[in-house]
């Protein structure tokens, strides 16, 4: 099963290597990892999607927690949260295909962000299902290039995983 972890880390050089290195050497199956700084520039936040059963998840959490740079770990999988991924797709689009592509973009509430001679660049945000759906729908036209951010997530409502929320 996929688990979504919200991890606060010190914004030190090497912290991404420490975290990703831990996953690879302990054989944890990492699905995606997105990282960026928080409102406090000394602290970064990682959203890590990891695959494993409860035993694996417990070890992932405990081993992560041993890293000196890791401040806080929340498994938000079973909480109510908003999870998003950003995708940018460059797709073949001659004059004939364009109307149909634009229709698909509308349906998926995506955006066209660049138009080339023979191509369109499409941007979309959403959960993995939606993003995968869009990618599938565009495949027949011939996808030239895809870039995805990996998932970022935040708890709904007044709950949060930030440090201020600590009791």
């Amino acid at each position, binding site marked *: 099963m996929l688990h979504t972890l919200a991890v606060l*880390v*010190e914004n030190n*050089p*090497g912290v991404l*290597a*420490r975290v990703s*290195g831990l996953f690879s*050497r302990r054989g944890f199956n990492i699905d995606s990892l997105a990282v960026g700084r928080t409102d406090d520039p000394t602290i970064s936040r990682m959203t890590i999607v990891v695959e494993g059963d409860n*035993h694996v998840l*417990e*070890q992932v959490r*405990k*081993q992560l*927690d*041993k*890293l*000196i*740079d*890791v*401040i*806080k770990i929340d498994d938000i999988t079973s909480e109510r949260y908003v999870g998003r991924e950003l995708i940018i797709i460059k797709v073949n689009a001659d004059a004939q295909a364009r109307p149909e592509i634009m229709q698909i973009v509308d349906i998926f509430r995506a955006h066209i962000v660049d138009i080339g001679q023979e191509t369109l660049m499409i941007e979309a945000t959403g959960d993995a299902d939606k993003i995968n759906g869009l990618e599938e729908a565009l495949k027949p036209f011939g996808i030239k290039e895809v870039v995805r951010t990996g998932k970022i997530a935040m708890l709904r409502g007044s709950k949060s995983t930030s*440090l201020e929320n600590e009791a």
Partner: protein
Amino acid sequence: MKLSGAQIFVECLKEHGVDTIFGYPGGVLLSIYDALYDADIRHILTRHEQGAVHAADGYARATGKPGVCLATSGPGATNLVTGIANAYMDSIPIVAFTGQVTVGLLGRDSFQEADITGITMPITKHNYLVKDVSELAVTIKEAFYIATTGRPGPVLVDIPKDVTTAAIEYQKPGSVNLPGYDPVTEPPLEQLTLVAEAINESARPIIYAGGGVVTSGAHNELRQLAELLLAPVTNTLMGLGSFPGDHPLFLGMLGMHGTKYANYAICEADLIIAIGARFDDRVTGKLDTFAKGAKVVHIDIDPAEIGKNVGVHYPVVGDVKVTLSKLLGLIKAKQPSEWQTQIETWKKDYPLEFVDEGMKPQFVIREIDRLTRDRNVFITTDVGQHQMWAAQYLTLARPRSFFTSGGLGTMGYGFPAALGVQAAYPGETVLGISGDGSFQMNIQELATAVNYNLPVKIAIMNNGFLGMVRQWQDLFFDKRYSQTRLQGNPDFVKIAEAYGAVGMRITKREEVAPALEEALAIPKPVVMDFVVEQEENVFPMVPAGADLKDMLG
């Protein structure tokens, strides 16, 4: 006052009470070595950086204080790697300092550059690259703090050359601020109550005690607990010395080369009280069948150890000494029962034994034990058959008296570690038990021993083989001794003499005790070459991955 980075380095070591460091200079360390020239810190120059880090490790194990070593950039730093990994596996507090090329040359494959923080990330508790002299003092303070608190471990600090030469107005760093680091030492009381209930209800408890007991200094509490419960105690390799070796409740070591009675007892127990131990595969054998019928209490300061290998019914995160002292107030004394009778029967039926004639290595180790029992002797070992025989046949009475490479199994550890122990306790007897293979992995440290008059006694169990590997070839590969015969061994007596130490060769049973007595009386480093039977095997033995009950021998 303005101080250079090198001077700050020396100041910080003094502030942390460092009296001895083990190291090897190099180009990027020139300023640091210049500052050390006038400093009131003893520097021991080893002949290889691996010797320095193992010596720092031995010093740390013997004293409980952090061991400190220093190496230059590139090859100097990478030569520390084995010793750092060794300390990491055995949770030994070490602060390793490495020189680095100047900040401007970082990442350009510069001369003698190695990304040592990258290399040691998986084998340090934490590590640092100091890019500005203003960060040096606070980094060193954090390094010592991290190395010595919680579950101890090695911390590496990499210092570029220009950081050692830059000068700033020096201020002592304030208190350590590490928001992501907060080791728990106090166990939760509710959890302890559950543990006490489980213990009080158990009929066949066994205590499985590891290195954590030694680290936290909980040997007295361990003994009280065992005597209160009349529970047998088995030690891991790292735990040896934490429970008196001659105590009637002692079962010796368990696991692959443990005693039969320890392994039977752990298999038949209804409650395993694991204290500062981590269920290593050399202890558990096949995990699926390990202690099937037992509930497991696991007391450890590292939460990540709990449930890592074996399912735990009663987890307790906390310092072992704090936890045991609280637990003692919650449990009831037990009356003798069939459990003790059963264990006595196993002890009688399955004693440790060997055919006691000729030059058996077990005999030599038993003689070492007999002749050193009344002294406060410190014993180190290398890795292999001699290590397992030492663990089996030595009567270890005190914690911090037996030093061996447990987790990593590092051949070449024992001799430099003995030098570190001797440097910590110059007046005491330090004896290293080694093999002809292991000793040659750091034989060059004979120069260090002679140079600093560190009068360690080395007892080589010389069987002309890489004995443990040969044993596996004997048992599992039809005696096809591929590359385990050590042809071209030097004359260890002459080697010792060439370095200025004393060499002795012992080939007969009746020479063993007189030679040991003579060696112990000589105030110089002594190498004793015990020429022992070549194809002796270590038994009992649980083959790798087998059920603990399936012991050979």
